[in-house]
């Protein structure tokens, strides 16, 4: 099949074939029902009522990780290094989750994905997530130690590296599990994983990222 045949516009390529050219061209620039439909989709009330419930639900979920932060307030204030970790942990968790989901749903659409550990795409996705997590969290260990020192903290390099690497590897494992399960569930339930998985997985990973981080902090520092 030639590449061009797919790009042919389907209907209405020839304006002369129109049965009513004058009427059509007169009303075309400001065709009322059409522009009404477009403006409606861009209406303020429409955008607000679609998004606010989602955002409200999202912020209610995020109170989960907020509660964890709040309960570690004393340790966080005492060790600025731990505060430095928080935004990176949240951001990286969501990023890894969205990379994993975006790749898996594309591969699903292309028909190159099977839910099996022997599948080369599955191996590549999982390998990449672990590689990215290892890179980011080793760098994060050194950076948070340096920044924490500059801000007057006393937490040592070794405990910080243990915290970042252990929580990073746990996070990568968790991202792989959550993404695979949600892409698979979405596929089984007949939803397009492009639409459903990324918002769910990025938020779930953001929240659990904080839980994992402070679980590891709790164990390592013996708080």
């Amino acid at each position, binding site marked *: 099949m030639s590449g061009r045949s797919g790009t042919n516009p389907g209907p209405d390529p020839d304006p002369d074939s129109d049965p009513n050219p004058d009427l059509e061209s007169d009303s075309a620039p400001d065709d009322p029902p059409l522009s009404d439909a477009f403006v409606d989709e861009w209406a303020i009330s429409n*955008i607000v009522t679609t998004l606010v419930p989602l*955002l409200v639900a999202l912020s209610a979920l995020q109170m989960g990780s907020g509660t964890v932060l709040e309960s570690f307030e004393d340790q966080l204030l005492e060790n600025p290094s731990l505060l430095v970790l928080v935004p990176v942990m949240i*951001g990286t968790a969501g990023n890894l989750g969205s990379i994993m989901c975006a790749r898996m749903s594309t591969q699903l659409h292309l028909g190159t994905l099977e839910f099996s550990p022997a599948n080369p795409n599955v191996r590549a996705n999982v390998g990449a997530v672990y590689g990215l997590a290892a890179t980011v969290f080793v760098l994060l260990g050194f950076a948070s130690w340096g920044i924490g020192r500059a801000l007057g903290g006393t937490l040592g390099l070794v405990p910080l590296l243990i915290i970042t690497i252990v929580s990073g590897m746990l996070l990568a494992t968790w991202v792989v599990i959550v993404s695979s399960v949600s892409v698979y569930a979405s596929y089984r339930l007949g939803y397009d994983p492009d639409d459903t998985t990324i918002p769910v997985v990025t938020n779930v990973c953001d929240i659990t990222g904080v839980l994992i981080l402070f679980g590891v902090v709790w164990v390592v520092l013996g708080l």
Partner: protein
Amino acid sequence: MRGYDTAFDVYRQALPVILVSLVAGLFAGTLLGTETMRNGIESVPGLLLLLPAFLATRGGVYGSLGARLSSGLHQGLIEPSFEWNGRLRNAVLASFINGMVVSVFIAVLAYVVLLALGRSGSLLELVLILTIAGFLSAFTMLGVLLTVMFKGYRRGLDPDNVIGPVVTTVGDVFGVIFLLVAVAITGVVL
């Protein structure tokens, strides 16, 4: 040719974005760890509680505005310039309203959770802080997002590829900065 990317291909493609978000996160984290911010966290009960929700909704509000404007540009529904016309104005006003409504909601919710945890807090203080921080970050995010998208689009960049990193990076950094500013202002006012 292989029909799939190896783990290393994927790693190499994703690394730049991940590293940019690492640097932005470290910057936001450093601001959080400063003496001023730690004093703020100590003096305002509930600030840590609402932090993840506040940062996450920046992404939700302005990420979806970015996605909408990007589709609008691709469909030719809006022009890549600051014309205060119907659709662009609607989208910008709507995300401003979204940002403010959700910010106030987060403040109220944080107050309720504080009470549920058996802690005390000031509802007025939390609402004031989030109103100020939401307002300041709305202006900044809208300015940065529109500038980057329109300039990028005119130079041939696909806005779809720009929104994600811009929103997360700018959103986290400015979210923390404006939270800090709002705590300072509220401290003076109350």
